[in-house]
């Protein structure tokens, strides 16, 4: 955990400094807003990573019936959804400057919005059951089921159609035009930094959850 915390602090300081100061490729339409790559995309990576951990722990709960795993799963889902909301908000601010509107009918936007709806449904389900062991069982089953539907929604469906996002459908992208990998120099550390931050928050929240949990 100490390594995760140190990595998180160091890499995020580096991301914030280098993400604003370093040279970026000049691309049409995007211009300086290309720097949002360092902050918006890692949010999604972190969300997927935390939700994966959540559904993995949910499966562990239903196969071992140890209530601890259910708490861990709930906790990761909670933090993952925070990152998802942050991803949507940063994306909306960026979209307002480049596309001229906060929200469009883009397959990636639809996928992420629906993905968040699935997890809001998960929280509604948890709150509507009184009995603790039943709550853990039913919500774990839903969590595993919902995550298996999230994968095609986020990773497969958007790739079948053109998207407005950079890199899709003839829009200037990062991989094709970024010849000397300037963006990768900050992007990969940013992803690791934000994932570490997510794990750190989840760790603190789990301690709090254990203290407030009356069982």
């Amino acid at each position: 955990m100490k390594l995760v915390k140190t990595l998180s602090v160091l890499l995020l300081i580096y991301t914030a400094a280098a993400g604003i100061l370093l040279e970026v490729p000049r691309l049409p339409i995007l211009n300086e807003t290309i720097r949002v790559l360092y902050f918006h995309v890692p949010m999604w990576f972190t969300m997927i990573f935390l939700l994966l951990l959540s559904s993995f722990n949910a499966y562990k709960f239903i196969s071992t019936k140890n209530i601890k795993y259910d708490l861990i799963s709930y906790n990761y889902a909670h933090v993952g959804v925070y990152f998802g909301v942050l991803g949507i908000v940063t994306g909306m601010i960026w979209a307002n400057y480049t596309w001229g509107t906060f929200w469009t009918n883009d397959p990636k936007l639809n996928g992420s919005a629906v993905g968040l709806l699935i997890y809001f449904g998960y929280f509604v389900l948890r709150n509507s059951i009184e009995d603790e062991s039943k709550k853990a069982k039913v919500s774990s089953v839903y969590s595993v089921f919902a995550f298996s539907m999230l994968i095609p929604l986020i990773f497969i469906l958007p790739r079948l159609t053109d998207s407005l996002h950079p890199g899709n459908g003839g829009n200037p992208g990062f991989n094709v035009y970024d010849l000397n990998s300037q963006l990768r120099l900050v992007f990969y550390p940013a992803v690791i930094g934000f994932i570490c931050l997510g794990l750190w928050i989840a760790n603190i929240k789990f301690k709090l959850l254990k203290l407030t949990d009356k069982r």
Partner: protein
Amino acid sequence: MINKIFSILYKDLKIEINQSHLFFSVGLYVISSIYIIYISYQPTGILGLEHWVSIFWVIILFSSITAVSKSFFQESGSRNYYYYFVLSPDELIFSKLIYNFLFIVFVTFLTFLVFSSLLGNFIYSYSFFITLLFMGSLSISNCLTLISAIGHQVKNNSILTAVLSFPVIIPILLILIKLSKMSSSEFSWNIIQDDFYLLILLNIILIAMTKILFKFLWRN
């Protein structure tokens, strides 16, 4: 195993025919909602293909949620208790899957019949569209069966089943709407194959997840 699946299926269908009110209520639900659409689109009727396809699938979605959410609730507590001793969870869930599939096929074709007689239709390649209706019913029933089993565990269940199933069913509905729009022109396998394979893949995922997860959900 096959014998047991079919005997439960037979029992369910027999109950369905004896207490035909569920059957008729879903039919009435479909017909009245289509009639509301018909009235609200007067005097011109639906002019565009986009409107036709999206309203068509939305009606199917809502009526199948109403139909499927009932499939677990008609089992009483003592009958469930009896099932624990004579059945394995796989047998029960597969019979429910087949039962829901049959029910949703009925809903889908009723919707198609009433919808096209009242509001006209834009379909050109019928054989493809009918295949699509079967595939759509299969996907919707695979998706909703486990959700309705989850909803069965919760007390204020009917609204929860709807809330939980909407987000999960959206990827399927997106593909179905996209494919239905293509059936208004000459059929060509090249255009639809990607989406069709994706639909089959989603069905495999859904059936696998339902089979794996139901046995954890079943026993109290």
